[in-house]
């Protein structure tokens, strides 16, 4: 597959780092992995759900398991020292990648979802009071929306959802009117996983701060796809997941401003996060360890470091350009058809396009696309309330990453046409 865009990425070379892109599909799916009846090339356009994992990341984890696997923090023997250093430095690397001040501001969680819950359980249960409110948006992922909704219910606080306009952009006037001096937290998604909308998170954070509220930005779709600087955004909390940025499953990152994390009580308690335990009481470790109880995701941290190395080698600006270009191309090609409805803005969008083909349920469409090797996501994308706003039960989403090409989008368009014929 040739390099097919002007973003400067050597897509052909990149694809060689991802063995799964050679995979054929079409046969028995009840047995994981390829089988002889698989005969259809794969066009993987489901990157917003999870990205694939390059050799460099898998090999870094294999090296960990084969060469210096050990529990961390407390061991004095050589393997434990090596593992500890790698694990601790992974925090530095993640901090640097998103512009945090240092490892004190980087807590490893299991995923973005846990990062939200961590803040809800620690900040939320101790600080959020009846009469106060949390402002979030109609386009939040369930990780954020359900967390704030449930927290507000528990605390007797109000939850407010900022509306979207017809283009699928955040209505900033509505946001300004909903944030008031009783607002304790403003939480918004950086890049919408359904609409592709890129929100003005720095402005949103400023508005929060003007009213003395904190801001929590959901970066699950942003960190993998563009340069992110949490200091520039001035976000109080920011979260993302390893598995969406070429890294492994089982690891996510909560960024928090140091003074905030210091003030919060711990979340999970147990080993590694304590300083001194007596039968009568316990004192806590310093940051970030205070928030990392038990044996942490060590191999996953090593994998995350390798993923960050890979992304920086390619260059986040180039990845952003490549994605934007593919998204624009997909949007334009899908726009050619009157029976296709596209969601989200045309300009300034992340590298994904959500749409529906008239008369064909998204799940049926996805099944038919799969038959042509085109892997997209169909459903509610963990944004059910947003789908209610859009007035559809589900949508189909094609999402792109550094290894995707225009040719794959052409395959998508062709496969959509087959579905159109079938249901005509």
């Amino acid at each position, binding site marked *: 597959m040739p390099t097919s865009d002007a973003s400067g990425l050597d897509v052909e070379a990149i694809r060689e780092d991802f063995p799964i892109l050679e995979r054929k599909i*079409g046969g*028995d*799916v*009840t047995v994981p992995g390829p089988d002889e009846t698989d005969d*259809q090339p794969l066009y993987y356009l489901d990157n917003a759900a999870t990205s694939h994992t390059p050799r460099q990341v898998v090999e870094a984890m294999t090296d960990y398991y084969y060469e210096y696997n050990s529990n961390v923090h407390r061991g004095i023997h050589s393997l434990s020292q090596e593992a500890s250093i790698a694990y601790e430095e992974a925090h530095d690397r993640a901090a640097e990648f998103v512009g945090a001040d240092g490892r004190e501001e980087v807590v490893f969680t299991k995923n973005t979802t846990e990062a939200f819950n961590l803040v809800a359980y620690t900040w939320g249960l101790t600080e959020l009071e009846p009469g106060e409110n949390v402002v979030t948006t109609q386009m939040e992922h369930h990780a954020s929306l359900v967390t704030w909704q449930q927290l507000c219910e528990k605390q007797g606080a109000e939850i407010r959802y900022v509306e979207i306009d017809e283009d699928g952009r955040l209505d900033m006037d509505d946001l300004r009117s909903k944030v008031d001096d009783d607002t304790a937290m403003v939480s918004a998604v950086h890049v919408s996983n359904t609409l592709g909308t890129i929100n003005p998170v720095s402005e949103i954070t400023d508005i929060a701060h003007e009213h003395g509220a904190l801001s929590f930005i959901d970066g699950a779709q942003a960190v993998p796809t563009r340069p992110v600087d949490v200091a520039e955004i001035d976000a109080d909390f920011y979260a993302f997941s390893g598995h969406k940025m070429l890294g492994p499953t089982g690891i996510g990152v909560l960024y928090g401003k140091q003074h905030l994390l210091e003030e919060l009580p711990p979340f999970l308690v147990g080993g590694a996060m304590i300083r001194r335990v007596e039968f009568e009481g316990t004192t806590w470790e310093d940051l970030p360890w205070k928030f990392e109880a038990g044996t942490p995701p060590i191999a996953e941290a090593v994998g995350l470091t390798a993923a960050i190395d890979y992304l920086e080698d390619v260059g986040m600006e180039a990845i952003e350009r490549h994605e934007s270009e593919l998204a624009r191309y997909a949007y334009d090609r899908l726009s050619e058809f009157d029976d296709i409805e596209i969601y989200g803005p045309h300009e300034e969008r992340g590298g994904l396009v959500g749409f529906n083909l008239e008369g*064909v*349920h*998204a*799940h*049926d469409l*996805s*099944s*038919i*696309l*799969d*038959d*042509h090797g085109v892997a997209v996501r169909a*459903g*509610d994308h963990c944004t*059910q309330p947003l*789908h209610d706003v859009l007035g*559809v*039960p*589900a949508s189909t989403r094609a999402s792109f990453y550094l290894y995707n090409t225009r040719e794959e989008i052409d395959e998508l368009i062709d496969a959509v046409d*087959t579905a159109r014929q*079938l*249901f005509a």
Partner: protein
Amino acid sequence: MSGSDMYRQQILDHYKNPRNYGEMQDPDFSHVGENPSCGDTIQVDVKLADDDETIEQVAFSGDGCAISQAAASLLTETLPGKSIDELQAMDTDDIVDMLGVDISPMRIKCAVLARQVAQDGSKLYRGELDEKDRTITEE
């Protein structure tokens, strides 16, 4: 078990021209179900013969994907003449046989929704099930 295989003529026909579609006037029992992540919703209305056991007529309404709707439509044709016991004995294989195509694992929940709605409806009718708001076949 791949996509288009599932969309053979019979399925598409029943999806495009659903049989016995609409709400029944005086059903003996009626029940609804949905798979929230799909947005599939189905109501099944059943009229029984005088023996209070034999299914006489079945109607369905609702919307959703082709698999769920075609399965409901086919079911309204299959059930009449069967007993409630026979309905309750139907398993996933029976539905797959009825559809005449392999259903991929992630779509089974769509295929079996109407059957489960009918079964739960009959159990509620017989008092074998305490109370059930809506039937769901998603895990």
